[in-house]
């Protein structure tokens, strides 16, 4: 008969202090090692590939700038994920919210006249926030009023959003589509936004996109909001226990909608930044292919949904994405980057257990109930009394 290995858990009263900060580097390292094994198993030289990845993302001239370009959307989608996941609200829809944000922001960018950079940037950012926020409001309202789990609705909306973008550029002569030249009519593409509305870059040796700075500002703002405002307090209470929140007079339904819409708005800013900082027109294929939203969840989970941590982890994960794109080819299939990012997320999720429990393999735990359990036969021997409030 099937026998599971004997793994026991002793509950920790308090996780050791080093564990929190140690976990992300361990998870990243382990993911890179497993990724290296996959490379090796498919006949490639992992050391050589990892060395080249470090070069194109960190040490080559211009490499750091490229990493920041890749990190820019991830800071923002990472923040979007951090806001909701922290509250155990599962907004998996940042991908779609980013795309609809990009639709709104590019419309604003096309419509703008010469109003000056500050005004046009503000308009584009707000447009992106409105787009992303509206797209997130759908699952939020469905959850609050009709009790529908946001996991599936946000996911389905991720599949619908790119179809809207494709429709706007490829299937109609919409406002977003460039119809000025013969070539653009044959090979459909988006209208370019006003040149005066292109977002600026900063820095000399290392070029910093404006969207990245916006991400840092937002991360600081969110940290302050969570720590020291009433809204943040309500978020923290509801995260720990929604029931306690309700007893304390927090209107949890309203809070949930606010948090979801805020998260969608931040993802929408990522969409606006894609238009303003980089592509300057709606690019359905690039946005659909990039999966910034899903990657943002890995970014946020790596630092346990801490807004300031998101900035650091976005640079790290961005470096990985950038290297994947730069070295893409038969030698390094693009899929490897997804493998590494997925592994990081899986390992982080799995390592949560070590904060709450001490994992003991194959040895009898000391606690009373546990000892009884370890002695029990795994093949469903005599029924044991389930522990009730024994060790807690």
């Amino acid at each position, binding site marked *: 008969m099937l026998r599971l290995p004997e793994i026991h858990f002793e509950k920790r009263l308090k996780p050791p202090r080093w564990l929190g900060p140690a976990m992300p580097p361990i998870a990243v390292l382990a993911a890179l090692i497993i990724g290296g094994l996959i490379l090796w198993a498919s006949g490639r030289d992992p050391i050589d590939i990892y060395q080249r990845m470090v070069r194109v993302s960190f040490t080559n001239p211009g490499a750091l700038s490229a990493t920041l370009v890749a990190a820019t959307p991830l800071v923002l989608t990472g923040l979007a994920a951090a806001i909701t996941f922290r509250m155990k609200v599962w907004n998996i829809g940042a991908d779609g919210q980013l795309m609809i944000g990009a639709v709104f922001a590019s419309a604003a960018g096309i419509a703008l006249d010469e109003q000056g950079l500050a005004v046009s940037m503000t308009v584009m950012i707000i447009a992106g926030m409105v787009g992303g926020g509206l797209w997130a409001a759908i699952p939020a309202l469905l959850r609050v009023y009709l009790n529908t789990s946001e996991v599936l609705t946000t996911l*389905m909306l991720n599949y619908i959003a790119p179809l809207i973008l494709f429709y706007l550029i490829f299937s109609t002569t919409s406002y977003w589509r460039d119809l000025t030249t013969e070539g653009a009519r044959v090979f459909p593409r988006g209208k370019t936004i006003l040149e005066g509305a292109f977002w600026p870059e900063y820095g000399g040796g290392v070029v910093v996109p404006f969207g990245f700075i916006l991400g840092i500002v937002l991360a600081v703002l969110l940290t302050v909001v969570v720590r020291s405002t009433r809204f943040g307090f309500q978020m923290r209470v509801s995260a720990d226990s929604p029931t306690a929140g309700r007893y304390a007079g927090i209107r949890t339904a309203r809070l949930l909608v606010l948090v979801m819409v805020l998260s969608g708005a931040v993802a929408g800013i990522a969409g606006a930044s894609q238009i303003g900082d980089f592509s300057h027109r709606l690019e359905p294929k690039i946005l659909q292919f990039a999966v910034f939203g899903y990657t943002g969840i890995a970014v946020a989970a790596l630092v346990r949904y801490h807004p300031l941590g998101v900035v650091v982890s976005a640079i790290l994960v961005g470096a990985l994405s950038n290297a994947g794109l730069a070295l893409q080819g038969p030698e390094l299939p693009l899929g490897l980057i997804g493998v590494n990012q997925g592994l990081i997320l899986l390992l982080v999720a799995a390592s949560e257990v070590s904060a709450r429990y001490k994992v003991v393999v194959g040895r009898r735990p000391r606690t009373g109930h546990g000892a009884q359990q370890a002695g029990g036969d795994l093949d469903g021997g005599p029924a044991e009394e389930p522990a009730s409030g024994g*060790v807690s």
Partner: protein
Amino acid sequence: MNDSLVVELLVSGLLYGTPLVLAGLGELLAERGGVMNLGVEAMMLMGAVTAFWFSQSFEGPGWLALLLAILIAALVGMAISTVYAFVVVTLRANQVVSGLALLILGGATGLSSYVASVGELAGPSGRHRLQAYNLFGLSDAPVVGPLIFSQNILVYVSWGLVALAAFYLYRTQTGLHLQAVGEDPRSADAMGINVARYRYAHTVIGGALAGVAGAYYTLAIAPTWVDNVTAGAGWIAIALVITAFWRPGLLLAGAYLFGIVTSLGFTLQARGVDLPPEIFSSLPYVLTILAVVIVSSGWGRERFNAPAALGQPYTREEA
């Protein structure tokens, strides 16, 4: 009569509904035990890519290539779901986050795409394809001919599995124990049922079915490889389980409804209906949202509830 629109829609509904039946049935079994496996999409894609790779490179008779390809897809699904079960059952990690991790890891931009580029699968069309039978020579019979007597082996297998699952869940002791594990693991444990083992076993069976469902795309629907060939069908299968109130019979009906909606675009376009393709492509996702909303909001919730312990890790140590 067999060219009528209704028959044509039903036939393509069956073609596109079958992977949903297989993957949905696997998810149903896992969820009946309390484990919500959100890695279905990743397991389907991995099943699809490995089955296609094997069927392309295997030298031997076609039937053997297809049979082994299906088995390999099942094994791959089992391997991935074992990892998932370890993470969520033994380590008690969050099931949503772990499921997403699997999606990124194995999904359209992850391992399935990596394997496809290593195997250079994109481009050439497949050497083998599951053929439809002509059972009792009745494939030309009106209506029932194309629907019932002219399907490929996996369709018949899926029907058998649905019947088997219904019997298993409601008429066998193990099946009833499984329901107990999903409803009230503490009492099940007190009865001497090994909660962890039930959860492992059914998550892994679910993984095997998801792998085979993936193989159906590259062996039956269209024997070629494109990244993200399942296009969210794994998530639709998860939604189907909810809208079928965790019942195998309803799941079968729902899967074919979704199959019809998925193929509506192809069928109507072939008949000269000229609408933007995006409208048809979005229909299954819109329908999924509508179905989940209807089930979770109103009368459905009061009558048929989800397994009470769905998504919750079980530990003896904590009361």
